Each structure stands twice: as C-alpha cells, then as structure tokens.
C-alpha cells in the first residue's frame, strides 16, 4: 500500500492494437494489410482504465499505464489514454511487442512493472489491471502470466470489483457462473466489456492530458536478465483471410411486404425453407 495506507497504487497494462474491424486483407496475398491499419486502444484495456479511475475516485491514489510497444503509437492515442485518467504513461519499446508471444510480452511487462514501481514511482503495486484479452489476438494469456511472473494472485474475468481496506472483492463471470471471490492485495485483475462503460473524457481532462508525463523506458534499462529470460517461444508461420463465397444480393421491392415475399420465394427455391 502507499503511505496513507488507503490510497491505491494502480498499474494498468495497455495495448495499442490494430483496429480489427478496419483491417482488410491484401487482395493479392490475403494477408492482413498492416501497412494501412488503423490503431486504437484495446477495448478491454479501456475497461481496465475506467475501472482504475472508479477505484481512484473512491479510494484515492495514482494510476499509471504501462505499454509494451513495437514502435511509437500515434500521439492522439497516448493522449486519449492520459485523458481517460492515467496520471502517467510508461512506454516500453520491444521488437517482439506485436509478435503475439504471450510469454515474451508478460515476462517483459512484469519486469517493467517491477522497475517502474521500484525506481520511478517508488511504490509496490496494490493492483495491476489488464483487459481479459486483446482484440487482435484474443489470447487471454498476458494477465494471468504477468500475475504469475510477479507472484501475485490473478483474478480473471472480473465483471465487478471493489476494494475494502486491503481486501479486494470481485465478481467473476466463468461460463454460466458468477463466482464471487475475495483476496488480500496486491492482486492482478482482468476485466472486459461487461465490467463498466468507459466514460468520455471532459474537455478539461483532454486539455490536461498534454501536460501529463509520458516516460519512455528502454528494455536495456530493465537489465539483460529480463531480455534473456524472454526468448521467443512461438513462431507465426503465416496469417491469411479465408475467402468468402457469399452471393451478396440485395433484395429490394415495393415496401416491406413485397420484399418479404421475394425473400421467402428466394429461400424456398434455395431449399432453405423445408420445415
């Protein structure tokens, strides 16, 4: 815990990902056209950030963002993360950041969290918040792996959480069940879209964002150890879009009833209305 004993030291892991809904296959190769990709803050990380802000509003404290980046993300995204409520943002450049190798990502993130806590922020983290998964790989490994690397308890798929003194109480959604758990801090919690609805920042927050610190760490600063320990475990052999064979016919007509009749006739002739 931080000095006051009740304020929270919160770290939020943030991934700047490609916007998967605006990513198109290259017509020639069917590989993703990453050269024209748009970037965004990973959806679930926005939920993690929002949850951190809500906890800070109740308990006080400080929120820092930590992101492993292959290259510098667009400045507007950095400002957006700061405007949403980060007090500082730490960027850790690493060539394998986009490789989707969760072992590498988690090992370096954990080393960065330790370094940032000990050297820059002089705290030990009460809470580390992550998204359940990132929208590009939808892998779900980084949160639990970081918890394991830091030796703290993971609380995955949390849909509601609260902190009372040094205890965290969380509702988790596990398939058909709601699992209510508690643990003593520190803990790592992963959240998703069910957890909250991220608020849009006020003008004031947007203006303040430009004055908040963005700290660029180097992986060398994390010590050779972290890098040596984070050798690649996976190799991406290829990524392609399977072809779509839809007919893409627009059914038009003279008002809803006419359209409906035409559609029913079409489905009948296709043999789709057997029952």
């Amino acid at each position: 815990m931080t000095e006051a004993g009740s304020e929270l030291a919160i770290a939020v892991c943030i991934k700047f990902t490609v916007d998967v809904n605006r990513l198109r296959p290259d017509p020639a190769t069917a590989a993703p056209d990453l050269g024209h990709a748009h970037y965004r803050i990973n959806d679930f990380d926005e939920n993690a950030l929002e949850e951190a802000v809500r906890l800070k509003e109740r308990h006080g404290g400080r929120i820092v963002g930590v992101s492993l980046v292959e290259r510098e993300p667009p400045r507007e995204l950095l400002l957006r993360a700061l405007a949403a409520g980060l007090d500082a943002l730490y960027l850790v450049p690493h060539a394998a950041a986009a490789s989707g190798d969760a072992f590498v990502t988690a090992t370096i993130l954990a080393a960065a969290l330790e370094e940032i806590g000990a050297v820059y922020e002089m705290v030990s983290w009460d809470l580390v918040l992550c998204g359940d998964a990132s929208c590009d790989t939808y892998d779900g490994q980084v949160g639990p792996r970081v918890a394991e690397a830091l030796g703290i308890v993971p609380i995955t798929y949390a849909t509601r959480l609260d902190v009372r003194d040094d205890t965290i109480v969380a509702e988790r959604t596990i398939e058909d069940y709601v699992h209510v758990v508690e643990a003593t801090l520190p803990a790592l919690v992963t959240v998703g879209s069910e957890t909250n609805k991220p608020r849009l920042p006020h003008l004031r927050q947007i203006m303040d964002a430009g004055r908040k610190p963005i700290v660029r760490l180097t992986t060398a600063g994390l010590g050779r150890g972290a890098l040596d320990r984070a050798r690649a475990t996976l190799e991406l052999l290829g990524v392609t879009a399977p072809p779509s064979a839809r007919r893409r016919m627009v059914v038009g007509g003279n008002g809803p009833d006419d359209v409906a009749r035409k559609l029913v006739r079409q489905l009948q002739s296709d043999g789709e209305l057997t029952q």
Partner: protein
Amino acid sequence: MSGRAEDAPSGVLTFSENPDLASELLAVGRALAAGAGAKLTTLMVGSALRERAEDAIARGADEAVLACPPDTRPGAETYLAALHAAVLAHRPAMVLVGSTRTGVEVAARLGQRLRVGCVTDALSLEIDDTGALVATRRMYGGQFLARVANRSTPAIATVPWKRFEPPPRDDDRRGTITETTIQLPPPRLRTVAIQQRPRSALDIRKAAVVVAVGRGVKRQEDVALVEALAEALGGALAGSRPITDDLRWLPPDRKIGLSGLTVRPSLYVACGISGQIEHVVGMRAARTVVAINSDPTAPIHAEADYSVVGDLYAIVPALAAALRDGRQRQAAATIESLQ
C-alpha cells in the same frame, strides 16, 4: 508410470475440468501421440473419478492420473498445482488443456511457470517435420487464420469446446490408472459465493435455423418481434454481444461470435446486427445468410447472401407474416392433394 529423468520428454498430457471437453481432448491427444509414437496421459482432478478414468482409457488414454486435492477445493489454483505436478512427473512433449475460461488461465500460468509458450483456442493441431506443434487459430477478430508453431518443451495448447468428437469407446483397450495427492499452498483466492446465471433450455448450435437479434432493436420488449420471426422459421433465437452481455436481454449461451458460440445452421438471419468481425466469426459457417439492416454500409451485408436494406421494425414482421402465409397455403395444398 512416470518418465525417467534421462528420457527426452515425450507423449501428450491432457486436462480439462469440463468432462465433455476432457473426452474431446482425447481425440486430438490420440492423433498427436500416434504421430509422435508416444503415450497419451490424461489428468483428472477431484474425487470419485474411477468411472471417468475407465471411460478415458476406453476412449484412447494410455494412463489416467487421478489427482485428489486434500480438500475438495476446485478452481484454477488446484488445477494448476495438479497439472504442474503431472508435467514434472510425466515429462510430456505436449500439454493440451480445454479452452474454458479456467482452462486458459491454468494453461497460461503453467506456461509462465515452465517458461514455455502456449497457443490458445487451437482450431487444428499437427506436428510438423521439425517436431514443432503447429496450430491454426483465429487472428484479428477472426477475419484471419494464423498458423503458429510452438517449439517449446513442453508445447502447450488449448482446444475449444465441440471442436472435436470424443473418440468412440473401445472396451477392450487397457491402460493404467494412477492415483496421486497434490500439495496445495494456502488459498489466496477465497470463494464468497457461486451463482448460476440463467441458462436457456435450447442449444443454438444444434438449430438448423438461427435468427439473431442485435443492437438495432431499441427496447427489450421488441426482441419479441425477432422471436416471432424465429418461430415462423422454426429456428432458434440468438443475439450479438450487446444483447446478451451489456443489456442481458438474452442469456449468455445465446451469444454468437468470438467470445460466444460458433453456429453452423443452414440458414442464419441477422436482424439489426452491424456485422463486426467478432460477431461474424461465429456465423460464417452458415450455409445461407440473410441480413436485415437499415444501414447500406453495414459490414454484415458483405457477409450475406441476401441483404435487405431497411427498417427491421417493418421487414421482420412482414417476413414472419409471409412465412406463415406460405406455410398455410402449402398446408392447404397438401390437404387438397390428399382429398
């Protein structure tokens, strides 16, 4: 029998806390172990597992390891301790875990403890000529398929539900059943309560016709319009994520998409669904797709065989009426033909 330290890691170890998925893993495990000329071991955690162990052997396991926790404490921590112990004792070349939420957490944490890679949600798995475990999995919301080689020892992969059929029983197969106890650290996560979320009686994956409702529906009571269409088609009602998760107008097991279920009906009708990729991956395998959406630029139209660009509040009831009408006329014709 445990592998000895001087042997190179070999064989396949499987685990899922979900009994159905545990049986399905035996199908993949058997195929991979056959390729590697090696042993298939399956781990079960809990008590009174004898019958399930015998079933696993009949379905292809060479050995079933039954790990009994000191108290009946289920959950990720217990499964992780048991799986970690089994990996150390049996030294498998590959570990397969069922892709439940708990399973993915366990697999990821095991990977971090062992400093190895894990491929989650593998749609297919094979061993290439270098001996690496090669998986196909979805990428970028599912629009793309990635081939990923896991060269770790052991190589971990998680396998989703209902992807593989459990192997048929062969009651002549023989295998070993080993019982072990596991040591657990004091629990860091304390369970306060477990509640079941509402469940539907019907499995939308088994329906020949699926009608899905999206955020284009404005009020909860209007879901009934789409439900009436599902009824007219003799199909099942499903939904997009906002409907099941955010608004909770349908139970979670009616969600179609990346974080929900994958369906393969012969007919899929999307009503007021934009067609974001995370939804589309769950319905792409449908034989025929109809989209009803008022926005001509909505991506769902590109995923459809037949698109209606229009207000679902007008189209959906008209379609339901046309179907009922058609069926009545057909019934009348049938009766006439019999007279």
